[in-house]
């Protein structure tokens, strides 16, 4: 055991390894900050370089990119209202309004602090609880996923905006769009209309970017070009300690949510971010400020998604099961070096595991350093006049979205979603519920149908295990709370107002 430690120590503390990890975090942050480019592309491109590195070094490069990408997504979300990575979409809700008010720097800084703390907690959880949380993954069959997703979908109610009915309608639209593609069970076409590229369904990167970034660009054209840039007294202002302390509880809660959801394969950062956000909103003394540029919203979203960054390695290292695409690529890197993640690796290659654990703690620190540099570079971008910034963001999105699958159809999807998103905005349908539904719709339907197949059509499948019951209870609790909040706050909001005849 001690020998392993010293070996591992020698392995990590070589200057090469540290440099490679730092490089990974830096590359990841840049890739994450470009809308459309995700850490998936980053790690796939870096994979061949790891073939010739030592295993620890290679894995650390990929992990660095993964972690950097998870944070980098928030930069584009705040500055350009385009989710740099899907997991950062929740950060837009409050980050983008803050940037619009000229508080980009505060938002970026809070995103960074929340990300680093959450990343650190997640890494810690990986090291301390890997064995224990790994068994969680094995408790999840289709029926358990189904109840987990039902619970997560009730989260949609938390981000529904002022009008619950409109929020739900937006979610229903998201569920509908998500059904496009080949049918999972029968392999038949659903809304494909003979287009081969549609068979895989709509890729969610172009959908998300279209939904958030394009309507914002179009919206610019309803405004007069402001000749002088308004100087906001908060511009360039940093996060102060009081604010940070106020958000600390939210950050810890978000990290915890991230850790648990990260340990379950296939759930991922988006769900964690939204769950964390809606919890923060629910427990806040002024929930109504969420969505208008509340710094705690940024903290909640970013701690939620970065909280998964270490925990997704739990099923990978402890069981050899990749929870998402990035960890699947990392699994490939392990295999090329003749390593098989799983219980065997903990016996035979403990030195590698320990080296990874030690180095991974460094990643949070590197994230902080890289983030600080980026904020310096990027926080003033929001001050570029809209007439230049908006078209530039569009061009950036087009390049980025194309890179997802080297497909021009994806660019069409982005633009079509953008126009639809603009219409939705005119109809006051909030985009966030659409997004959650679009992301969770397919796994929800899949889990439902798989459970039905396994139980031969009997709904008893959904009540078969303790995990099911836990999520049913959580779902009921969550719904009751939403209902209580809606009805208790309703009388205050009710004002006699003339039916809205505002021009649209």
């Amino acid at each position, binding site marked *: 055991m001690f020998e392993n430690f010293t070996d591992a120590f020698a392995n990590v503390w070589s200057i090469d390894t540290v440099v490679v990890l730092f490089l990974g975090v830096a590359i990841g942050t840049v890739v994450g900050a470009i809308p459309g480019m995700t850490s998936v592309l980053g790690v796939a491109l870096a994979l061949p370089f790891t073939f010739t590195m030592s295993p620890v070094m290679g894995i650390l490069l990929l992990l660095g990119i993964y972690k950097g990408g998870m944070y980098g997504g928030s930069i584009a979300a705040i500055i350009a209202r385009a989710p740099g990575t899907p997991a950062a979409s929740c950060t837009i809700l409050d980050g983008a309004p803050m940037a619009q008010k000229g508080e980009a720097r505060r938002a970026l800084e809070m995103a960074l602090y929340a990300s680093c703390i959450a990343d650190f907690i997640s890494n810690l959880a990986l090291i301390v609880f890997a064995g224990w949380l790994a068994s969680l993954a094995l408790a999840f069959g289709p029926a358990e996923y189904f109840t987990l997703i039902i619970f997560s979908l009730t989260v949609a109610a938390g981000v529904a905006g002022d009008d619950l009915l409109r929020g739900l309608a937006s979610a229903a639209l998201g569920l509908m769009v998500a059904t496009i593609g080949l049918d999972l069970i029968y*392999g038949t076409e659903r809304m494909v209309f003979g287009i*081969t590229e549609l068979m895989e369904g709509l890729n969610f990167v172009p959908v998300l970017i279209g939904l958030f970034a394009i309507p914002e660009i179009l919206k610019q054209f309803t405004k007069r070009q402001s000749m002088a840039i308004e100087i906001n007294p908060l511009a360039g202002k940093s996060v102060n300690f009081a604010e940070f302390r106020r958000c600390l509880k939210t950050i810890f809660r978000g990290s915890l949510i991230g850790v648990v959801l990260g340990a379950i394969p296939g759930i991922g950062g988006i769900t964690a971010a939204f769950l964390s956000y809606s919890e923060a909103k629910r427990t806040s003394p002024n929930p109504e400020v969420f969505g208008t540029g509340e710094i705690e919203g940024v903290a909640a979203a970013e701690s939620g998604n970065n909280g998964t960054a270490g925990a997704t390695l739990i099923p990978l290292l402890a069981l050899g099961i990749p929870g998402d*695409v990035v960890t699947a690529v990392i699994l490939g890197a392990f295999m*090329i070096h003749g390593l*098989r993640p799983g219980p065997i690796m903990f016996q035979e290659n403990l030195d590698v595991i320990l080296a990874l654990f030690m180095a991974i703690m460094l990643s949070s620190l590197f994230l902080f350093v890289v983030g600080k540099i980026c904020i310096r570079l990027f926080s003033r971008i929001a001050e570029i006049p809209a007439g230049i910034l908006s078209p530039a963001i569009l061009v950036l999105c087009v390049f980025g979205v194309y890179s997802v699958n080297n497909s021009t159809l994806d660019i069409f999807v982005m633009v079509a979603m953008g126009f639809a998103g603009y219409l939705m905005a005119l109809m006051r349908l909030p985009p966030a519920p659409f997004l959650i539904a679009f992301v969770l719709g397919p796994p929800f339907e899949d889990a439902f149908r798989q459970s039905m197949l396994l139980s031969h059509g009997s709904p008893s499948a959904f009540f078969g295990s303790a995990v099911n019951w836990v999520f049913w209870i959580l779902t009921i609790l969550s719904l009751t709370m939403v209902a209580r909040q809606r009805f208790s706050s309703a009388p205050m909001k009710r004002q006699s107002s003339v039916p809205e005849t505002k021009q649209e």
Partner: protein
Amino acid sequence: MGIVVGSAAAEYPEKPVTLVAAFGPGGTSDVTTRVLAINAAPHLGQPVVVVNKAGAGGVVGANFVHSAAPDGYTILLGRVATHAVAPAVKNVPYKFDDFTFLGLIEKNPFVCVTSTDKPYKSLADVIAAAKASPGKLSFGSPGVGTLPHLMGVMILDEAGVSDAGKAAVHVPFKGEGKAVLAILAGKIDYMCANLAPTIGHIQAGRLRPLMTTMPERLSAIPDVPTSRELGYPKLEVAVGWSAIVGPPKMEEGATKKWAEVLQKLKDDKSWISMTKKLGSIPVVLSPEETKEFVTESYKTMDALVTKLDLRIK
């Protein structure tokens, strides 16, 4: 599309070659493509750039290369899925043999597994259970119309289970990873899959291997009987493979160059070692042999799909 630069005088390749991966990052296919790219580049004398064109079980990528310029700068890592299973199971926008076959590079052995928590100690136990109570067993696959799906039915059919298509419930998942997770969690009874994603769990004692489908036993799991030993030699069709293919009527210079590259790759220690670590068996075939092999693979799948009534309309 594009402008043809130079003529026969110019040596192929003069610029980087694009190798299309028909599946997204994170799967065995993607890693195989990248391993090939990095190892083939020195023999080719130009970089090989991997480009992912994923969708519809590899059909999108294969179709993309099928309609690409035949100048040898866009080629595909064809898989059993793109050139045998998918064309047999469903309508695809290309014909499986309307490509320039450059060479087979590897085979991927299959292994049928069950969870160690399940009572089945051997394949015979699974078959007996399917016979005793038809429709109660379940098997997983990474998607409808994939080789593991066909295999799940074919095992029962070969063993003489009546109405094999209904004797066990097929539960498709989105990708190999999720299917493996379901069998680890004990939610499904058996599954036939590539060796690569299962070997770790077999060694860790979570999955029990029942049968392999190569003619010889696999060195990684030498105790597991082959389908031939169990009396089902026909199940040997269930083997994955990868081959380099180009658009139809590809330029001769490029075709020849790739045949040379593959001959060199055959003895390339680095490529062989990486391929083996991924759980595959390096097998390099000449263009003619490859065409024959792929045709055989397609015909077997086609016959199987017809017999078991698994075609998707």
